[in-house]
């Protein structure tokens, strides 16, 4: 899950961009698989800063994006939510850039800025008219090099309150808002780096000290742990000169420790009931799967597209159309750097029990495991990849995210090409294999029910209440 600093609107953009995979230089009207491309140039400064540049003169704007390879999985129990709280602190001004200037030189000139934190990375970005590129690099380099010069406890406390409000708005005061936190807590063991949600607990947010902030910054916000991506309307030589000028003198930090992330499997099903401020119950069935570096994720993503979505998808057809026991159903592979989960989410129609819906969904999944999908089902699931990729090319920020993701997670900014090819290469046999390998009895079944209606859970007698 990802948590944003400023508003929700960017989240949609981020998801769109990351789901999109194509080619600015491709001749119009000809899109072959080999034309799927984002032209780029990558290099590393002596201090370790990873730089990726990609010019696109279509629109006179530039996206500047810095990924720091640190997220909630780098936190320690008792200090959860820290990476995201820290992200907020990064917007409070730095040694030479007083608070407020950042917004004035981005949003105040028709651009925008935001940040996001996930389990794996923390992401900062600006979109600006192309004549403001230098000032954007000045701001980003100043907070990388000189954040601590102006940091004090008052700034930390102010952001702490805002983050607590973010938690209230997104989770505590939102129907089904605590689901992902509960699922993480129950899929991953207490000491596992993916056990806690990115937003963290209220208690831990209160506990973070100024010293915690400073230590975290010194270790993780060094150039050798950062990926700077610039995409849009700029001159490459000029941009390189500015990058050198503003980032070149920031000293390299210590080697960054990576948490040891053990793969997770559940031996037996975990059945949970959460009483929430909801009017309509909902069922979540979740299996631990694999992360970014395991190629099974491609077949798992295709499996999700095959199972649910369009009315012809077997889960949707069976539950929403044929029996009409559900108002909606979805199936998705969620992929983090080291781990992943496969989610099936079902919202019932009135008078249909979660128990019956779970059984109906299991019957469809069982058939998929036994028969596998048809070739046409796989083709339909991946037919939209080309359009999705080419549409992603319309956004400088979307391209920046793709290049950064490749650079940070796969040590290859051009990984988008591999990703595209591997998605299109998925076969019916691959899908059948991953369905059998991962969609086993070792899963979490979470029923979210209205307060006081624990009997509406799926198999309530076997289900354990969670707070």
């Amino acid at each position, binding site marked *: 899950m990802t948590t944003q600093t400023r508003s929700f609107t960017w989240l949609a953009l981020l998801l769109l961009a990351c789901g999109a995979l194509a080619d600015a230089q491709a001749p119009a009207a000809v899109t072959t698989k080999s034309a799927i491309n984002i032209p780029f140039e990558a290099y590393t400064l002596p201090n370790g800063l990873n730089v990726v540049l990609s010019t696109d003169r279509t629109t006179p704007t530039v996206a500047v994006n810095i990924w720091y390879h640190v997220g909630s999985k780098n936190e320690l129990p008792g200090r959860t939510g820290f990476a995201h709280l820290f992200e907020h602190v990064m917007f409070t*001004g730095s040694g030479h850039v*007083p608070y407020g200037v950042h917004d004035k030189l981005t949003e*105040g000139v028709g651009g925008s800025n935001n940040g996001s934190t996930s389990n794996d990375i923390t992401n900062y970005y600006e979109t600006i008219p192309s004549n403001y590129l230098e000032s954007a690099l*000045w701001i980003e380099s100043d907070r990388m090099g000189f954040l601590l010069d102006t940091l004090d406890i008052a700034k930390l406390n102010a952001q702490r309150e805002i983050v607590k409000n973010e938690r209230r708005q997104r989770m505590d005061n939102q*129907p089904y808002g605590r689901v992902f936190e509960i699922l993480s807590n129950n899929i991953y063991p207490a000491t596992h780096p993916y056990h806690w949600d990115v937003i963290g607990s209220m208690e831990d947010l209160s506990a973070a000290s100024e010293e915690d902030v400073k230590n975290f910054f010194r270790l993780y916000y060094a150039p050798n742990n950062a990926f700077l991506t610039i995409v849009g309307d700029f001159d490459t*030589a000029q941009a390189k*000169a500015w990058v050198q000028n503003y980032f070149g003198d920031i000293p390299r930090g210590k080697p960054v420790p990576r948490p040891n992330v053990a793969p997770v499997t559940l031996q037996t099903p975990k059945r949970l009931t959460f009483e929430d401020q909801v009017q309509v119950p909902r069922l979540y069935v979740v299996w631990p799967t694999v992360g970014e570096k395991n190629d099974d994720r491609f077949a798992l993503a295709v499996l999700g597209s095959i199972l649910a979505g369009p009315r012809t998808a077997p889960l949707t057809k069976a539950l929403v159309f044929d029996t009409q026991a559900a108002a909606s159903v979805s199936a998705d592979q969620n992929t983090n750097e080291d781990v992943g989960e496969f989610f099936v989410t079902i919202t019932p129609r009135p008078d249909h029990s979660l128990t019956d819906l779970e059984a109906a969904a299991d019957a469809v999944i069982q058939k998929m495991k036994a028969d596998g999908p048809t070739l046409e089902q796989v083709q339909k699931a991946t037919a939209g990849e080309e359009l999705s990729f080419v549409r992603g090319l319309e956004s400088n920020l979307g391209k920046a995210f793709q290049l950064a993701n490749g650079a940070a997670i796969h040590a290859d900014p051009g990984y988008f090409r591999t990703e595209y090819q591997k998605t299109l290469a998925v076969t019916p046999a691959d899908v059948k294999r991953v369905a059998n390998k991962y969609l086993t009895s070792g899963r979490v079944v979470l029923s979210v029910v209205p307060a006081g209606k624990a009997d509406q859970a799926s198999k309530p007698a076997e289900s354990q209440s969670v707070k």
Partner: protein
Amino acid sequence: MNRRAFAVLCLLALSPQPSALTGPQALLAQGAAQALDRTKTPPVGKTPELRVPTWTKSTLANGAELIVSEKHDLPLVAFSITFLGGADQFEPAGRRGVAGLAAAMLSEGTKTRDGEALSNALQLLGTNVSATVGGESGSISFVATTSKFPATLDILADMMTNSTFPAPALERLRANRLVALQQAKAQPGAIAGRVFPRVLYGDSHPYGRSATEESIKAITRDEVVAFHQTFFKPGRAVVTVVGDITPAAVRPVVEKGLAAWTAGGTKPDFSYPPVPALKPATIYLIDKAGAAQSTFALGLPGPPRNTPDYYALQVMNTILGGMFQSRLNANIREEKGYSYGVSSQFNFGKGPGPFRAGGDIVSEKSDAGLTEFMKELRGILGARPVTAEELQIAKEALVQRLPGTFASVGAINGAVTGLWIQGLPDTYYQQYSKAISAVTADDVVRVAKKYIDLDHLAIVIVGDKANIEGPLKATGVAPIALLDIDGNLVK
């Protein structure tokens, strides 16, 4: 908070100035980084030229207008048919929701393809046709790769002109909408979103009405079919094609694809009943027991889009609550820490769309939050003069935002149809910068006074009554009326 020094720096930032350390020479010079003076805001480059897309206009044989805008850098086409008028003009009273159901029914089958066949064909084309009807306009649209454009257009035309409206499909859609309405009863934002317009406009004005369980249950198949036959007509429509096509080549494709769509329909006149007389300022409190936050919506009916005050209102609202650093958010989120974000906007339409400020405030600061909202509203009415810097930033933000709004075929399509719906000239974007630049600080205060009437402000708050009613009353801002989640007065 470090809010003292930035004003000076920022003014410097907004005016281009020379620098000794830019350009490729800085890279070559040894030790250039050491010589860098980070206290100086870097110079701003030359403002890029505004490149507004161009388009051609013509009329199809059936009377629909055709607008074509070329963009050839990527093999993409954004196609839409946009209809003037929407639910506010074409839905019968007591049948809110029929427009949305009619749009959804387009995917449920045609004379030659059932719902599954339509879905299969679109999946294999890798795209989707979406149909929506809003308050004052509707559209059927898709984005496709250039090679898939004609085939997708054929499916769209089939959906629009040959729909069969199978009765079982209507019952399924109806049941799912009832579930969505039920779920919304637990969402504070959704509750405020329904009650706020009802408080402002009442039940007699279309702006005050939204779909309810009763209206959804009452809709018949005949009414859905009647809506379809009345609404999706070329006489009130514009067809827009944006992307990797040319006007000469695309026109015959469109004429052929839409051959079965026969002439008919006229543009609505958008006459609305009068807005009910304004009531004295009131806090309308809706109880949500145990809520961690209170959801605020404060406002009034505003002017229509064609008001001559449009540009001054845009600048005024940008200063008040249209940006992250606008007064409301800078105070209530950043300085006070009461919220994750607050904002304000005018919802401009053909009629008197609302002005609305609001956001989610932590429960125990509901009273203090209300006090700060009122303070900022009084501020923009004159208590806190608009500074030259605020005015400049608001104008720069509005004008320099334009290039980004033409970045994709979908965005250009939206910009072009937006002008068409509002009846604005083709040269609108070229004139925009001039119109914004002409706004003065006096204009800002003038339009604030004209449209933000604090004596008649409606303040809708969804929150934990047991904990916030007393403190809200103690603010003395306005008397409290209790409403239920549908906006009915609680005795």
